[in-house]
């Protein structure tokens, strides 16, 4: 077992984990952050995407021990302290950018990362930025629309 310290959604955790534990397993099974989900076992689908020190990572591609000493933000940590939705969450709702919602946590986290690195993307750049996140329901059109609406110069 290895001792790790991590801030998850603003709360400090200190746990002993098996070194092979994936970050997503740690988040779901130890911290109880079941909002972050697992969709595949080959790092293709992006359903498990979280922010590590503000940058998106697929939490299935990282060991929990690699996140030791870092800060993780999950879908459950996006809302403001008064419970208000993050603008990206609101945009997904407003634009019907989700159906079954399983890919949605990862898709929202990746969308935030896309705009963090490029606040005024073209639609093409948004599509490229979301390439690592699969959705089977929406056909992506409304997801792209949601992200564009939050971007600078977007219609939000």
């Amino acid at each position, binding site marked *: 077992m290895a001792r790790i310290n991590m801030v998850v959604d603003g709360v400090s955790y200190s746990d002993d984990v098996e070194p092979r534990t994936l970050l997503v397993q740690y988040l779901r*099974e130890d911290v109880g952050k079941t909002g972050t*989900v697992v969709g595949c076992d*080959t790092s*293709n689908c992006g359903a498990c995407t979280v922010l590590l020190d503000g940058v998106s990572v697929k939490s299935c591609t990282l060991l929990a021990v690699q996140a030791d000493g870092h800060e993780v933000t999950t879908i459950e940590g996006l809302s403001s302290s008064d419970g208000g939705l993050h603008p990206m969450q609101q945009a997904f709702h407003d634009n019907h950018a989700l159906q079954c919602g399983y890919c949605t946590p990862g898709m929202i986290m990746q969308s935030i990362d896309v705009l963090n690195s490029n606040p005024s993307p073209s639609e093409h750049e948004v599509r490229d930025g979301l*390439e690592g996140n699969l959705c*089977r329901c929406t056909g992506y059109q409304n997801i792209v629309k949601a992200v564009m609406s939050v971007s600078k110069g977007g219609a939000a």
Partner: protein
Amino acid sequence: MTTTEERPAAEIGAPRRRKEDQRLITGRTRWTDNITLPGMLHLTMVRSPVAHGKIASIDTEAAKAAPGVIAVITGADIADEQGSLPCAWPITPDQKAPPHPAVAVDTVNFAGEIVACIVARSPAEARDAVELVDVDYDDLPVVLDMAAAAQGGELTHPDLGTNVSATWVYDSAEAGTGSDVEAAISSSDIVVERTYRQQRLIPAFMEPRSVVCDPTGEQTTLWSATQIPHILRLMLALTCGISESKVRVIAPDVGGGFGGKLQVTPEEVITLVVARRLGRPCKYTETRSESIMAAHHGRDQIQKLTLSARRDGTVTGLKVELLADMGAYLGLVSPGIPILGAFMYNSIYKFPAYRFVCTNVFTNKNWTDAYRGAGRPEATYAIERIMDELAVEVGVDPMEIRERNWIKHEEFPFSTVAGLEYDTGNYEAATARAKELFGYDALRAEQEQRRQSNDPVQLGIGISTFTEMCGLAPSRVLGALSYAAGGWEHASVRMLPSGKVEVVTGTSPHGQGHETAWGQITADRLGVPFDDIEVLHGDTQISHKGLDSYGSRSLTVGGMALVAAADKVIEKARPIAAHMLEASVDDLEFTAGRFNVRGTDSSLGIGDIALAVFAAHDLPFGVEPSIDAEATFDPANFSFPHGTHLCAIEVDTDTGAAKIRNYTCVDDIGNVINPLIVEGQVHGGLVQGIAQALFEEAVYDDSGTLVTGSFVDYLVPSAADLLNFTTDRTESPSTTNALGVKGVGEAGTIASTPAVVNAVVDALRPLGINDIEMPCSPYRIWTAIQAASSGAKTPTDNPTVDEPAQPTHNAATSEAMTTETSGDNAIDTEGGRA
């Protein structure tokens, strides 16, 4: 037949943002895999790596001794408890079906079949122990080629004595719905014969299947990522010999299904049996690789069509000879999937003669079953492809050939050669709108210009004018098709004392937004605020009766059950309102949630009556103190959405890359409850159909191993692979239900595949190419171009196309797909696959 009612509609038709979003966008979800129960154990499955073999021995000792392992269970251990997984659709009285144990007992019949189950204290310990189970197999001959299998040779199930499960025939002359097709073919000016291949597909719902079973209560409770909690409850009880009243099934948040979760799975049976045996809660969650390998697949058919026509392009007859690969077993509705297509090959056209013969075949592959569209995409693909071929023969624009044959709007209701009655439709209107939005004439002009200039990037235009049968289904029709259940749906409306409303539905949404749409229907019907309505579903203890969600049935059948229940609430409330208002029942009118005494300003809200009924202090004598109501609705007919889909695709003749430039569709799904949800369903449906046309294929190698065993190889498209669609609607309300609705869940998937492939072929037709087998990967297109330009036609008797794909990254292009193509398409089905 009823007609659509005129009502004030504040909510119906409004683009309501969805209620269910709140939990989904904040991560406060209840996926099955999120459930943790005290003392819960974790299951993993040991799966066969061989496609066909006798289990010579299983050594579980090392696994049993591994840390955390509680039990290792083989098929022999639970042979008496696990029963045989159900098939509810025997399409013929003499249909052949092998026993289908959840855990293989002595034989494995496809790679991925479960041979043992590990039970451990943690998921990791359960997974570790899988590697410690040592299974010896005696290999048996592997049957993979459905066309060869249909002819005999090695057998998938030697005990059955044949690889053919059933042969099902529809003949319009025999049915009295048309004339004799052979006579039509032999006397026609033009006969076009083509064979198309529906590749095997994987539903690839985003939430892997998961099941949790708690056997500790008086009822055994099973949570499952399923589309069909009600059917599952009944089938688990029957399969495992448990009283149905002792089983409760809950479908919590379910992350997509697309038919892939319309199943009674081995994993559900095993988890139930093991939990009951051990007396402890158990959970099983599949990995994506397991899901791709062992959750049921879809499509996988060879379609031979013979279309006859007069010189002017008027079709005189259609003969369809179908081979359908069932895989190793018959799933819940596997045999009926190709049969659903039988009614759709004639599509929107007036064909005078029709014959459909389907042969269902066993092979040593994962079994096939429902996948979005289920029989109808296959039929639509084949007819829309061959109508293009007829247009070439006749020498007219492919739209023209359709117009010459389709049912005109003034000809509805129309009895089809396949025995259905289409209630409404307006193909002219949808087509006119689609052509306008698409810029059809301008694109044709550009295409001609590029052809003239020998542009290396050629433009193709693809058309798909489709219809589908939705709203599964009138129970009498299902009975006539030998389906084991009916097609009704149930709903109840509970009027709470505070004026709030609970709607309980037998439909089981897994992304469709019923909580919102049913709320909108109820709000309009009862005149209560949308936010006062809660829609409950997916738990057999709450929604005790239902037939769940699939086949674009939820709104047309379940929505109508809700309407009927709400109307009963109003009728139950009416005498109570009259009593409270001291008026005659005949003087009351119910509008906007209130009973008004005509000609006065005296009125009562439905919520006031709910409270009065709760108190029950002063009700008319003999009146039940309840205005709650339930209703079960059986549709009188299917519904028939239709639409015109147009695709413009640019094909780079140097590289074979095909890029969709414009996709425009105009769908007629009747009246719309929520346009946001409708548009979303169309978008997603389009992408699944486009994915079949361009990207996806489940490929087995010669030993029966699934090569496309992960999302690395099975190319579910990403945002970067796609474009924005232009969508619009025409509205020809269904006349067979009071809402005037038709269903939208499958339309995009059904329509888009032929639109895209027709566009690819249209781009390449000047090169002498008349087919590209799906998926139309750059490699297949490039190969076809090379073969055509070298003048070397692909031999017609050596068609096809199921070479293993090389592993490729899931990216925008899939150049590494290793495939071959059939340049000429006069494929003999008996030639089969290499």
